[in-house]
């Protein structure tokens, strides 16, 4: 080869290398990055899969897949311009609701319908927006940033400034127009009626609040400190009536304030304050002079309500709502057939504020156990899961399937409520008055948007992402990994009326429980999580709260219980007593009458039991629950118990009134955590019954998880979202098998979810309970359940052996009635929920049957 040829080859090689490798990729990536991002957005953060852009004008964000360039927006693109509540909601990154003076209905404020300013300070991989709704005098900071898992939006409660605390002056400029001249701090002096105003330019004014001006008709009335009318001046067009009222400035020097009027417009009554430096400012009276009676306060906030929205009939995919274990709502055009959105308080109804609307024939809709919601776009392969890290105790999850309220979009969001309107009863038969709470709930917001793309952009992918997030955030720090077992709950006793007073209805004595456990062990049930309910004096309904360690004598007393506990432990069964330190039966615990939970209206809360023996039950105040609960844990510890099951406190979160003060949900949560933590600190195994997600980190095991949702018309399918997220991390038991109408189908759900079954057992026939408060337990006789327990134990244990002790569900696919669940070791479980034979991945199944295929295809 000639030298020229060699040189040519070298050049060609270099050119090829250059063209093949770096430049092309760089260009493609460049062309993909931002290609679908509209003008006005700027890049503020990224991770290895997504870019995050923000539009400064309205805080809208766009999330772009790095590999394909597909984008997901937080505000509606190409929507009709205009104003209005819904346009504002669609076009604003942040939307608030506020309360105005005495009006008791929250009003929406957004970046379309209200005056506002936004300033930005960039932070690491994100930005902090300083938002002020200028016409409301409400301001706060919101930080948007990107991390490895997705986008994080935070807002500190401390950053909220309201007119009530800090105000501003609206003055007339030289052209006679209203002008905000800057935030002014107003501080009360030691004199009750004095205020010192400080403008942003440093000028200070002292206003004597008691001298304020009000106008009625065509007069201006000046009142003195006692509210006594000082003088009334006529107003006339063009008149410029001025008079003096004594006001002291910071230097205690008297200044002059002059009210002025502008033709016939009541709003434009001003006070002119003269500062110590001689400057003057004219202040709109509504904003300052009547400051203590007229203010805007924040009621609620939405952070990116339209994140990942879908337009009816355009996008493909579905929403995820936290109903039951999780449910999906498809994006297809509903043609306005639905009228109301999904709107649920996180962690259940706030009984301190809202009324429990019981109906004899209706089953209450499922509570939100964990604060998550999501949007999955199957067309662009982007999925987002909203997870509330902080602020969950004051949040609602709201989902609008398209068509609801005539909106053409599917969207789901969280609403954080700082203040709410409630009904204050005026007395029996005297009706209610709508009232709002003055107190602002104290919580910060940390809302995460976990992002998935490609193959994992599905509910299963998001559930796995949620699990990873939960692991990272320490939700399972206490979780115990135990081999497969079943939960066996015994019902000890109830009470029923007798000729004089009440008598025990003994359902299972401690000795009988021993017999049952021994027999189950002999029949091959190797492991069980044994929980004893209704073990205490006065039984299940009569013995609440469980305020002391006093096993019922009719069940066998302390010695009987000790023997049972020891036997259980010998057999390798986890054993615990169910304790309810929330419910209060005043009839059996009259000394706790004054410890009853009160709503924020200061009414004592109670609920009907509809039972034949005890007609109502109350709840304890959180403080009493804590005191009783901690003592009880201590007593159980001393008695040698290594486990405890908490119910009641695990399912409630509410605002309340105690000792003449309003307390918010965060205070209740703190008390309940203290109780459970007391058990944790003593090394006891803690079983939480149907716990709200904020308590998961304190649980060793979780029981009574719902198997189904509320069956809303708009949901397309129920998904085992929660159990996928929990699998392999913490043992979870589903609700009782006893009361299932479709036993076979229920068993398939256990198989599908890798969940452990639970049974409520009694030695006696439950017909004995028909005159007690537990008349709704219509099926529990052990000898009728024995064979089923043994059979299910065998089959489910085999599944657990196949998937491994720390097996996790990694995928869940549904096709019609067929479902395929993939576990981390490659084992697949195929299930047919249908009434006919079905096939999936070449696996054919009879109706209502399942098949486990291990990683090797066997």
């Amino acid at each position, binding site marked *: 080869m000639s030298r020229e040829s060699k040189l040519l080859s070298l050049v060609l090689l270099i050119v090829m290398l250059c063209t093949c490798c770096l430049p092309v990729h760089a260009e493609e990536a460049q062309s993909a990055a931002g290609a679908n991002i509209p003008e006005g957005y700027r890049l503020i953060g990224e991770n290895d899969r997504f870019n995050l852009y923000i539009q400064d004008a309205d805080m809208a964000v766009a999330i772009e897949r790095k590999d394909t360039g597909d984008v997901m927006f937080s505000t509606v693109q190409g929507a009709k311009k205009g104003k209005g509540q819904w346009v504002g909601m669609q076009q604003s990154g942040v939307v608030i609701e506020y309360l105005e003076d005495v009006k008791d209905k929250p009003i929406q404020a957004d970046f379309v319908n209200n005056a506002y300013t936004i300033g930005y300070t960039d932070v690491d991989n994100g930005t902090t927006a300083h938002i002020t709704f200028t016409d409301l005098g409400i301001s706060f900071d919101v930080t948007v940033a990107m991390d490895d898992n997705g986008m994080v939006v935070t807002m500190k409660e401390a950053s909220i400034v309201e007119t009530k605390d800090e105000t501003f002056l609206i003055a007339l400029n030289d052209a006679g127009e209203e002008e905000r001249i800057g935030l002014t701090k107003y501080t009360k002096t030691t004199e009750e009626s004095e205020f010192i105003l400080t403008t942003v330019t440093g000028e200070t004014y002292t206003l004597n609040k008691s001298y304020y001006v009000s106008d009625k008709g065509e007069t201006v009335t000046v009142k003195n400190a006692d509210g006594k009318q000082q003088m009334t001046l006529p107003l006339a067009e063009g008149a410029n009536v001025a008079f003096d009222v004594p006001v002291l400035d910071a230097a205690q020097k008297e200044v002059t304030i002059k009210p002025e009027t502008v033709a016939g417009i009541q709003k434009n009554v001003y006070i002119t304050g003269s500062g110590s430096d001689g400057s003057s400012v004219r202040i709109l009276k509504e904003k300052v002079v009547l400051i203590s009676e007229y203010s805007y306060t924040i009621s609620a906030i939405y952070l990116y309500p339209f994140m990942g929205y879908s337009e009816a009939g355009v996008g493909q995919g579905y929403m995820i709502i936290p109903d039951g274990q999780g449910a999906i709502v498809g994006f297809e055009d509903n043609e306005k057939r639905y009228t109301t959105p999904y709107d649920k308080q996180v962690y259940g109804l706030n009984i301190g504020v809202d009324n429990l609307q019981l109906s004899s024939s209706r*089953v209450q809709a499922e509570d939100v156990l964990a604060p998550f919601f999501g949007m999955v776009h199957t067309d662009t392969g982007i999925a987002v899961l909203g997870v509330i890290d902080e602020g969950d105790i004051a949040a609602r999850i709201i989902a609008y399937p398209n068509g609801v309220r005539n909106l053409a979009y599917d969207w789901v969001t969280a609403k954080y409520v700082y203040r709410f309107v409630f009904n204050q009863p005026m*007395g029996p038969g005297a009706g209610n*008055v709508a009232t709002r709470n003055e107190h602002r709930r104290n919580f910060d917001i940390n809302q995460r948007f976990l992002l998935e793309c490609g193959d994992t952009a599905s509910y299963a992918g998001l559930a796995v992402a949620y699990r990873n997030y939960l692991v990272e955030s320490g939700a399972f720090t206490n979780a115990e990994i135990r081999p497969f077992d079943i939960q066996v709950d015994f019902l000890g006793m109830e009470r029923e*009326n007798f*000729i004089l007073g009440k008598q025990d209805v003994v359902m299972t004595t401690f000795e009988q429980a021993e017999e049952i456990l021994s027999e189950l062990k002999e029949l091959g049930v190797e492991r069980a999580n044994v929980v004893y309910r209704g073990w205490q004096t006065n039984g299940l*309904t009569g013995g609440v709260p469980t305020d002391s360690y006093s096993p019922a004598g009719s069940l066998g007393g302390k010695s009987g219980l000790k023997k049972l506990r020891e036997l259980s432990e010998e057999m390798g069964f986890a054993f615990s007593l169910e304790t309810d330190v929330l419910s209060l039966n005043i009839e059996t615990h009259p000394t706790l009458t004054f410890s009853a939970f009160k709503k924020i209206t200061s009414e004592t809360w109670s609920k009907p039991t509809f039972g034949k023996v005890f007609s109502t039950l109350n709840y304890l105040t959180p403080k009493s629950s804590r005191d009783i609960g901690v003592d009880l844990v201590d007593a159980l510890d001393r008695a040698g118990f290594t486990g405890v099951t908490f119910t009641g406190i695990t399912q409630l979160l509410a605002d309340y009134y105690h000792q003449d003060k309003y307390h918010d949900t965060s205070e209740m949560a703190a008390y309940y955590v203290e109780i459970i933590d007391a058990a944790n600190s003593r090394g006891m195994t803690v079983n939480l019954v149907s716990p709200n997600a904020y308590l998961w980190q304190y649980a060793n095991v979780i029981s009574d998880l719902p198997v189904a949702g509320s069956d809303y018309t708009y949901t397309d399918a129920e998904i085992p979202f929660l159990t996928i997220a929990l699998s392999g991390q913490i043992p979870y038991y589903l609700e009782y098998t006893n009361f299932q*109408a479709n*036993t076979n189908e229920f068993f398939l759900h256990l198989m599908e979810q890798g969940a452990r079954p639970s049974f409520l057992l009694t030695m006696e026939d439950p017909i004995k309970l028909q005159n007690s408060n537990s008349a709704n337990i219509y099926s529990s006789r052990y000898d009728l359940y024995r064979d089923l327990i043994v059979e299910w134990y065998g089959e489910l244990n085999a599944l657990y052996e196949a998937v491994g002790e720390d097996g996790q569900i990694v995928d869940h696919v549904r096709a019609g009635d067929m479902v395929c669940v993939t576990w981390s070791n490659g084992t697949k479980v195929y299930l047919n929920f249908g009434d006919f034979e079905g096939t999936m991945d070449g696996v054919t199944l009879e109706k209502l049957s399942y098949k486990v295929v291990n990683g090797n295809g066997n």
Partner: protein
Amino acid sequence: MKKFAAWLLILLTVLSLGSTALAATPFRTFTLGNDQELIETQTAYEPVRTMIRFGDETLKNPQDMRMGPDGYLYIADNGNKRILVVDTQGNFVREIVDKKNIKSPMGVFVDEDLNVYIADDKARAVLMYDKDGKLVCEYTKPTHQLFGETAPYVPQKVVLDKRGNLYIVSKGNTNGIVQISPVDGGEFLGYYGANTSRISFLTHIRRFLFGENSDVAGEIVPISVKNLAIDQKGMVYTVTEAGDESALRRLNVAGKSTITPDWWIELNSAVAVNSSGSIFTANANGTIMEYTSEGSLLFVFGTNDELTEQRVGMFKSVTGLVVTDDYTVYVLDANLNSIQVLRPTEFTDLVHQAFTLFQEGKYAESKAPWLEVLRMNSMFSYASTGLGEALYREGNYAEAMENFRNGGYRQGYSDAWWEERSNWLHSNMSTIIFVAVAVIVVWFVLGKLDRRFGILKPLRVVKEKILSIKLIDQVLYCFQMLKNPYDACYGIKREKRASYLSAVIVLFIFFVLYVLNKYFAGFLFKTMPDGYYELLSDFLTVFGAFLLLTICCYLVCTITDGEARFRDIFISAAYALAPMIVFQPIVLALSNVLTFNEEFFITMINVVALGWTALLIVLMLMYQNDYTLKKTFATIFMTLFCVLVVVALIVVLYMLISQLVDFIVSIYGEVVYRFVKRV
């Protein structure tokens, strides 16, 4: 029998803390418990889907729905003035549109030849279309004399029997269902199955006072049929909006009802029946009931979407109901413009399977499914009864009794007890005779020994000592009332043979026996449901009523020249309860051993005891006051009137005081609200 007024109350009693119902269905399911009250049970029917769109078609205010022999659903789509035909999956099949004639389709029916009959209330006709949608015939207002010139003809619903006769529900026509033969374009055959009007006691009084034609008397019209269905045998089923047993009827050829439902609610709007004879009714608010072919309530389910939650299985205005032979239920809702589909759960399938065997008389075969039903729900009374029947036929009477008792089936319990008792007597007869003979011998020997050696003397001394205690003597004096009432009254009045304290003790003994009889009578004769104790109210009833009666009686006596002092009346009245004190323990004992076959004994003893007591009271009043018989009865009536006045006075006082209390509480509430610190 349960009335609608009790419906909510009863439902409330069965709800309990921490309900066990799955949330998958938004409604609870109930069945009748052993004391004829509703109890919660497993979900019987679960909603599976909601059909809103049928291809490109939707419904608008649909009013009726039937299933044709072709398996399609025919819907009277009132708002769209058509009959919409869809399949059970919700796919559009065809529609019958006739702008000229179909004006307001309210009811629809399909015959074997797929001819469609439309009850059109604005067209005032029943229109018949053939399967190609061609108008064949129009049945307009009959001109027959018997129809009545002024009788309204506004067709609402229609069904057809095998002979082709039409049964038409006409709005506002209270004469009954209009029956028309297809001959000659419609011959009026007469009215059929009219409901009878029910007149309340108050209406009777009003009519008596103000005359039958008075406005105040109120109009008395029989309630009209709201909807109807027909089964394969030609039996017509009707529902009404009334809250009485006419809520559901099954009419025979003569138009008489052959079933009486054991439970009902108001506002029934639809009825359906399948080939197994199971009857389903729905009320407009969304409560669906399944009855057996005998009219026994099996399940109550479904609920109203009062909070607009939009959950599958909640209804707003049910207008049509179809039930297939496999028990799939289709519910048409005029407000939601949808058809919701519900299907039976595994539990319900089991119940139906057992019921079918049971109704066919295959008691032994039904045992296994009944046992499985009981495993799933120990309180399911039909299962207990069914199992009881099976066990009864097996000769296992003791277990049969237990199951009959659990099922609340008294006749079965009585029969089983009869058998069990006979068996017991049979096998223990020799022992019984031996014991009886032994007792007689011992008695005889003891008597002889006592006479010779006085061995029972110490017992007699003790007895005399006890009897010599004055109070005991006074109490026992009440039995003198049985022997010689006049003597007893004399003793009370003149000889101080009794005191207030002894009278109170006698009254208390009566009270104790009353309570024992009320709560511990045998299952067959007990009037109180198990588990209910109202001792305070019993106490107030017995002592309050006694006190009120004696005081009123005394007051009346004082103004009718009676000689009796209050003491005399009080003590004598208490002592007049002696027959009750004697007989009640006998009744109590018998109620625990007798069956319904010997019920007569108990009735007879009760009648004797009551009659005797009443007689003693009359005699006591006569003697103590020195009245004539006539005057005694006059005094009794006046006493009762006096009691009535006092009770009315107490009620008025109570109402006034409670209003005052309410007023004060309201003011307190207002004050608290004004001054309480806002949260």
